[in-house]
C-alpha cells in the first residue's frame, strides 16, 4: 500500500453530486412559494374571524409586557405575500450564502407566525410566546448537547451516529445512580461518564479496529437500546423504589438576569442543564476556532496526513476528543431522567440522538449552527403541544411527525450541499 492510497480522493463527493442542477436551482424558491401559498390559501382562507393574541410575559412576572393582538386572516395573507416575495427574490436575484440563510430564516418565521395566527384566531386564550420559547429551549437540551458532541466528533474525523446510544445510557445511568445514592450531582457525573463509556466503545472500534463508522454507530445504538431495556426489565421494574425513583434538579433562576422581560424567563430561569449547555456551546465555539486544540482538531478532521506530518498525534487526539465529547452527550442524556421526567423508561430518548445528528449536519458542523438547528427541531415539538392545547383540527400524530418531515425537507432542499470535514469517517492508518 502506498501513501497515495491513503490520501482521501480530492473529490470525495463526486458520486453524491446530482446531475440535475435545474432541479436544485428551483428547489428552494419553489419550496418557499409552496409555504407562501399554504399561508394564503390554507391558513388565511380557513382562519376563523377575530384576532389572534400573543402574550409576552408569564403570570407574576415583575415587569409585564402588554399583549399583542393581530387580525388573524389578514396576518396570514400578509405573511403569505411576504413569503412569495422572498421566493421571487431567491429565484431571480443572485444572493450570497449569508443572505440565503437569512431568506430561510425569514420564511420559517413567517410560516410560524401565520400558523399561530390561524390556530389562535378568535380564541380568548392567548399564545404565550415566553412559555413557547422557554419550553423550546428546555426540550431541546438533549438535542443541543447531542449535536455539540456530534460537532466535536465530526471535526475530529469520526462519524458519531451513536449519539442516540450515548443519550440513552446517560439517562439510564443518571436515573439509577441518583436513585441509589440520592445524590443528584453524582447522578449527573455518572450520566456524563456513561455517555463517555459509549464513546470509548465507539473510539476503540472506529479508530482502533477501523470498523465502518456508520454501521458501528447503528449497532452501538441497538446494543445500548437492548442493554438498557434488559436492565430495566430485569432490575428497575422489580425494584422500582430503590433503583428507578430519582429526584430531579429544580429550577434555578439567575438573580437580576432572570427578571429581564421576555429574555429573562426564556434564558435565565432553568435547570443546571441549560446553563451547562451554554458553557458547552461557548467552550466548543471558542475551543474549535480560537485555540491550538481547535486548530489541531480541525486539522485531523480535514487532512490527518498533513496533521501527522507536522507532529500532531492524530490517533491519540481522535481518541481523546471522541471520549471527551461523549461526556457532553451523557449530560444531555441525564437531562431526560434527573432533569425532567424523573423515572427511566425503555427507549425514552425516542430518536432525539438521530435528530441531534441531523441538527449537526443542518448546522453545517458549526457549534452555533448545530444549536440553531436543534432549537428549530425543539420548536416544532413545542409548537405541536401548543397546537393541541388550542384544539386545532390537526391530528396530534400528524403534528408529531413534523420534526422528522422538517429534517427531511431541510436535508433535501433548503440546506443545499453541506460539506463535512474531508476525512470524516475515514480511519487513519499511520504510515
Amino acid at each position, binding site marked *: *500500500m*502506498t501513501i497515495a492510497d*491513503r490520501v482521501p480522493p480530492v473529490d*470525495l*463527493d463526486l*458520486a*453524491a*453530486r*446530482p446531475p*440535475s442542477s435545474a432541479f*436544485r436551482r428551483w*428547489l428552494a424558491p419553489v419550496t418557499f412559494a409552496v409555504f407562501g401559498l399554504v399561508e394564503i390559501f390554507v391558513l388565511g382562507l380557513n382562519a376563523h374571524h377575530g384576532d389572534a393574541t400573543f402574550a409576552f410575559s408569564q403570570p407574576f412576572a415583575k415587569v409585564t409586557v402588554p399583549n399583542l393582538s393581530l387580525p388573524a386572516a389578514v396576518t396570514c395573507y400578509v405573511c403569505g405575500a411576504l413569503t412569495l416575495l422572498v421566493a421571487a427574490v431567491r429565484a431571480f436575484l443572485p444572493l450570497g450564502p449569508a443572505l440565503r440563510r437569512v431568506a430561510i430564516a425569514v420564511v420559517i418565521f413567517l410560516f410560524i407566525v401565520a400558523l399561530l395566527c390561524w390556530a389562535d384566531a378568535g380564541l380568548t386564550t392567548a399564545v404565550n410566546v415566553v412559555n413557547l420559547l422557554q419550553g423550546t429551549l428546555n426540550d431541546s437540551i438533549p438535542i443541543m448537547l447531542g449535536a455539540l458532541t456530534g460537532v466535536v466528533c465530526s471535526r475530529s474525523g469520526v*462519524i458519531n451516529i451513536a449519539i442516540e446510544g450515548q443519550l440513552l445510557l446517560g439517562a439510564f445511568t443518571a436515573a439509577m445512580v441518583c436513585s441509589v445514592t440520592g445524590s443528584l450531582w453524582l447522578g449527573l457525573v455518572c450520566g456524563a461518564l456513561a455517555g463517555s463509556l459509549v464513546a470509548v466503545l465507539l473510539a476503540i*472500534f472506529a479508530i482502533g*479496529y*477501523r*470498523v*465502518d*463508522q*456508520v*454501521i*458501528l454507530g*447503528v*449497532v452501538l445504538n*441497538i*446494543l445500548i*437500546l*437492548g*442493554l438498557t*431495556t*434488559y*436492565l*430495566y*426489565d*430485569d*432490575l428497575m421494574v422489580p425494584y422500582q423504589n430503590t433503583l428507578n425513583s430519582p429526584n430531579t434538579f429544580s429550577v434555578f433562576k439567575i438573580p437580576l438576569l432572570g427578571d429581564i422581560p421576555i429574555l429573562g424567563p426564556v434564558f435565565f430561569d432553568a435547570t443546571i442543564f441549560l446553563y451547562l449547555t451554554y458553557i458547552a456551546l461557548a467552550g466548543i465555539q471558542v475551543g474549535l476556532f480560537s485555540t491550538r486544540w481547535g486548530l489541531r482538531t480541525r486539522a485531523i478532521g480535514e487532512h490527518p496526513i498533513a496533521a501527522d506530518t507536522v507532529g500532531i498525534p492524530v490517533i491519540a487526539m481522535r481518541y481523546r476528543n471522541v471520549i471527551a465529547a461523549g461526556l457532553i452527550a451523557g449530560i444531555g442524556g441525564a437531562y431526560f431522567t434527573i432533569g425532567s421526567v424523573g423515572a427511566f423508561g*425503555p427507549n425514552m430518548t425516542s*430518536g432525539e440522538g*438521530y435528530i441531534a*445528528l*441531523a441538527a449537526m*449536519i443542518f448546522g453545517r458542523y458549526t457549534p452555533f449552527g448545530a444549536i440553531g438547528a436543534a432549537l428549530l427541531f425543539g420548536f416544532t415539538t413545542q409548537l405541536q403541544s401548543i397546537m393541541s392545547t388550542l384544539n386545532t383540527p390537526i*391530528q396530534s*400524530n*400528524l403534528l*408529531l411527525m413534523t420534526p*422528522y*418531515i422538517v*429534517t*427531511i425537507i431541510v*436535508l*433535501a*432542499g433548503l440546506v443545499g*450541499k453541506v460539506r*463535512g470535514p474531508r*476525512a*470524516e*469517517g*475515514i*480511519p487513519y492508518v499511520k504510515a
Partner: protein
Amino acid sequence: MSDQASSSGPAAAAKKEDEQEPHASFGQSLRDSILEGHTVTIIILAIFTGFVVGGLLNAFTNTTVLHAWGNFFSAPGHAIAAAWDTAVGAYVAMFEGSIFNPHTVAALFQQASFATAVHDGYLSAVFNPLSETCVQATPLILAGLAVALPYQAGLFNIGAEGQLIGGMILATYLGYGVSLPFFVHVVVCVIGGFVGGAAIGWLVGELKARTGAHEVVVTIMMNYIMIYFLAYLLSFGYLMQAPHTSNEITSPIAGDAHLPLLFGSHLRINAGFLIALACAAGIWWLLNRTTTGFEFRSIGKNPSAARVAGMNVERNWVLVMLIAGGLAGLSGATVIQGTDFTLNFQSYGTYGITAITVALLGLGRPLGVVLAGLLFGALDAGAPLMQAATGTPVSMVQVLQAVIVLFVAAPPLIRTMYRLRATRAGGVGEVMSKGWNG
C-alpha cells in the same frame, strides 16, 4: 488492498465475493461460503463470544444470583453454582423453545396409539419449536434482505422499519377492504405489501439521487414518520380503525387473504417462509446473474468508477432502494397475513431493527441473511419460554444480537481474543470505511 480502500464493509470478508468465479453455481457458492475458513470461523467465534457475554450479563444481573453473591464468603460454591444455573438454564430454555424440546417427545410416546397422538397434535408439538423459529425468521429474512441488497450497492438502509410499516398498512387494507377469491386475494395482498414498502424505499432513493440527502438520516426520519402515520391511521376512528372499538387496531383481514399453512393447523409455519426463501434466491440471482446486479455491485464498490464506466448511479440508487423497500414491505405483509391477521400499534415490533443486525451478521449476502435470519429467529422464538422458565427478560435477546454483530463487525478483535492469525496478506478486517460522501 488498494481496491478495498474505496469500498466498505462490516467485515472485509464481504469483499471476497468479487474474487469468486463469475459463473459459480448456487451450490458452489454455498460450499464456498461454508469452506471460507476464516470468515466462518470468525462468525462462529463471534456468536460464541456473544453467548458468553450474554450469559455473564444474565448471571450477574439476576436477583437470586446477586443474593447468592452477597453470601459469597459463607458459601462461595453456591454463588458460582447459582450464576451457572441461571445462565445455562436460560439458554437451555431458549433451545427448547426454538429447536427441540425433549418433553414433547416423551409426551408423544406416552400416548396409547401413534395415530391418536398425531390426531391430538402431540407430533406437531415436537415440531412446534422449529415451526416457531421459521415463523420468526420469515420477516427477519425478508427485512434483512432489504438491508443487505442496498448494502451491496453502497447504501445503508436503516429504514426497513418504516418500509415494513408501509407494506403492513397496504397489505392489511387490501386484506379487509376488498373481497376476492382465495388465491387471488393472497397474491393481491402480498403484492400490496411489496408496493407499500417500495413506495417508501423509492422516496428515499429519489431524495438521495436528486438532492444528495444522505440515506441514513432520511431512512431514520422515515421510520419515525411511518410510526406516527400508523398511529394516526389507527386512532380516533380515522381511516383504518376497526368500527365499534376504541382500541387502536384494524378489522381482521379476510380468511381468503391468510397465507396458507404448510403443515396442518397445529403449526404456524406458513407460505411466508417459502416467500422469504424465494426472495433470497431471487436476490442472489439478481446480484450475481444480471446486468442490474452487476451495476449495483459496481456502484457499491466504487461509485465514481461506475459513473465513469457509463453506469447511471442515481437511477440505480433509486432502483435498489425501491426493491429493498418492497422486500421490507413483503416482510410486513407476511407478518400480517401469516400470523397476526390484524394491524395494531405493536405489529411492526422490532423486526426493522433486528433486520440490520441480520444483514450485518449475514455479511450482506443473501445466503448469509437466510442463515442469520434463522439464528435470530430461533432466539426470538425461544425467548418467551426463557422468560417463563428462568425469569430472564425477553429483551435479553436484543442484547445478544447486538453483541454478536458488534463482534462480527470487528474481526481483529475476535482474532486478538482467540489468538488467531490473519490468513491473508493485509489481513481481513482492515476495513477502510467511508464517510458520508461515499
